């Protein structure tokens, strides 16, 4: 079992309110990712769950028991740190065995568990080496091994992949996912990388300035972001935003600004009935923009001037000037375009996001 419940968690550092009223239920066997820019309180939240940081107010319980006052060692958790925190003076074997030795396991049991974990992670050949003799990826595996030998109720990961190079990071990401599927232990994972969050998490918690912005499955965050911040944070390249004024003409709603004048699709218009004459933020993802053809006449279209063309092979990223603003579009690699071309683009009507210009929440 490994059910973690956060109830009204707050953290103050002197006058700084680092974590603001976090409520969250993490189910057994779930992989939950905390994501957000640096300083958003995600690591602090994780450290409070670990018991490395005192809670200013609120309750954290694991499997129904409030653990607020329990020492880290008594919470039955294991943590993987960003810098791995391997004990430099111990061999890989001793690093992995340390937690079991501290808990007074029998020698035979320790040996069995360490070898089992080493097998799973493919580090059986390095058991006698010291951490400094290992590569980054190998150290990462040892750090993982040290966590899994303990068979804890919850794994905590604090940006474990951010010290690896890009290629290894992708590889380890897949391995982490496999490991979780295999062991089925509840995992709480902190990262600033939205790709890691999307690929690893069963559910993702997006945080900013100590506040939880949205909790949901990765696709839910992608398709129905709760506010402008989540919309811009999830997805790469980031969503395009344009501040527009809603106007009414001939019974249909228009969104207008200096460079845009588009007819809002019915479904969006429904939601904006009450906002006529007011300013809202329109959001559309680069991948939801296409070069407009004859068939797109009924879609919201706009004109743009290409400023930069980024060829990625599988797609082309266009940085464009639209009126006074800029937008990015991700288009088919077969389209022939060059800088300063004028282009007409169409939006997928069902993929249009609208946010209140003041509160930034989704409408």
């Amino acid at each position: 079992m490994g059910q973690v419940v956060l109830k009204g968690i707050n953290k103050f550092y002197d006058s700084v309110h680092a974590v603001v009223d976090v409520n969250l239920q993490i189910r057994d066997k779930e992989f939950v990712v905390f994501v957000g820019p640096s300083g958003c309180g995600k690591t602090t939240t994780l450290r409070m769950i670990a018991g490395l940081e005192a809670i200013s107010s609120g309750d954290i319980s694991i499997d129904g028991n409030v653990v607020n006052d329990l020492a880290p060692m008594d919470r039955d958790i294991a943590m993987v740190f960003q810098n791995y925190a391997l004990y430099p003076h111990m061999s890989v074997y001793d690093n992995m065995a340390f937690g079991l030795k501290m808990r007074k396991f029998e020698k035979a049991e320790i040996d069995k568990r360490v070898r089992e974990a080493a097998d799973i992670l493919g580090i059986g050949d390095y058991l006698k080496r010291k951490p400094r003799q290992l590569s980054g990826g190998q150290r990462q595996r040892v750090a993982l091994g040290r966590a899994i030998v303990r068979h804890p109720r919850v794994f905590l990961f604090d940006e474990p992949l951010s010290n690896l190079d890009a290629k290894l990071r992708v590889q380890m990401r897949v391995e982490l996912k496999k490991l979780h599927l295999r062991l089925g232990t509840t995992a709480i994972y902190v990262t600033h990388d939205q790709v890691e969050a999307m690929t690893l998490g069963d559910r993702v918690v997006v945080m900013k300035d100590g506040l939880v912005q949205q909790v949901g499955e990765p696709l839910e965050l992608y398709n129905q972001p709760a506010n402008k911040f989540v919309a811009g944070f999830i997805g790469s390249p980031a969503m395009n935003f344009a501040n527009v004024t809603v106007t009414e003409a001939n019974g249909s709603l228009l969104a207008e600004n200096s460079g845009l004048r588009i007819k809002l699709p019915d479904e969006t218009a429904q939601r904006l009935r009450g906002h006529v004459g007011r300013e809202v933020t329109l959001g559309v993802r680069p991948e939801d923009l296409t070069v407009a053809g004859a068939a797109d006449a009924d879609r919201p279209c706009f004109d743009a001037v290409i400023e930069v063309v980024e060829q990625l092979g599988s797609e082309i990223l266009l940085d464009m000037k639209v009126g006074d603003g800029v937008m990015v579009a991700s288009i088919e690699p077969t389209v022939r375009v060059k800088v300063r071309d004028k282009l007409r683009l169409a939006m997928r009507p069902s993929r249009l996001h609208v946010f209140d210009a003041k509160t930034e929440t989704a409408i």
Partner: protein
Amino acid sequence: MIEGAIWRKWVFFYAPMGLFLLFLLFPFYWMVITSVRPDGELYRPWNAINYNPFWTWKPTLDHVRYLFEETLFASWLWNTMFIALMSTAISLVCGVFAGYALSRLNFPFAGSLGTGIFITYLVPQTLLFIPLAEIVRNYRLGDTPWSLILTYPTFLIPFCTWLMMGYFKAVPKELEECARIDGASRWQAMLYIIIPVAIPGILSAGIFAFTLSWNEFIYALVFLSSPEQKTVPVGVTSELIRGDVFFWGPLMAGALLGSIPVAIAYSFFVEHYVAGLTGSVKG
């Protein structure tokens, strides 16, 4: 390292380095050569025909023999060793714990306490020995090794504490946090993880403390009076300079033998010691 032609290397690297070495090693050479030179050569006037200050053809161990047979040099050596080891041990234990506490535990006034400790290190011994002499006398410790074993830590503990504080700060905090999640108490984490990782720092603090107490002069001169209690630096200078007569041979032999233990201590731990000074912890 200097790149380029070989002559550049010689001119800009080996030659200055050689000169520097010569400069540094000459006093040691002088000490060695004087200690094995017979008295007849040592007191020959500079304008004598066979005056040759830098070499001898008749080396002798007379001075060393004199040192051990006619003076209490053996007991001075033993005294110095005992006092240096004891005061180093006391200072290391206190310094390691204090350094750990000051760098890792957040308690009120930790910062100002650290500065306070450093300031006590800055008070010169030449002033501090006056009140200390009073204290030593009141506790009837005068003329015993304990007068030094208990007073040397007054400057060794601040020194060790500061060195260890710096070293502990360089040890990643996560190591300890990880140990504590792994099931170690704060004590165990310190004992099994932090102290082993800090061994280079502890060794350099130890070597420094040992050398400082081995070479210490003022306290030893003031607090010890009978010849059999003296330490090497005091014993050699007070017993081998009588009035205005310098017994150069035994003096130099005593200085030479007195510096050997320190040299051994250094060479033994030199690798750790360098790592300790550069403060590198590789994870």
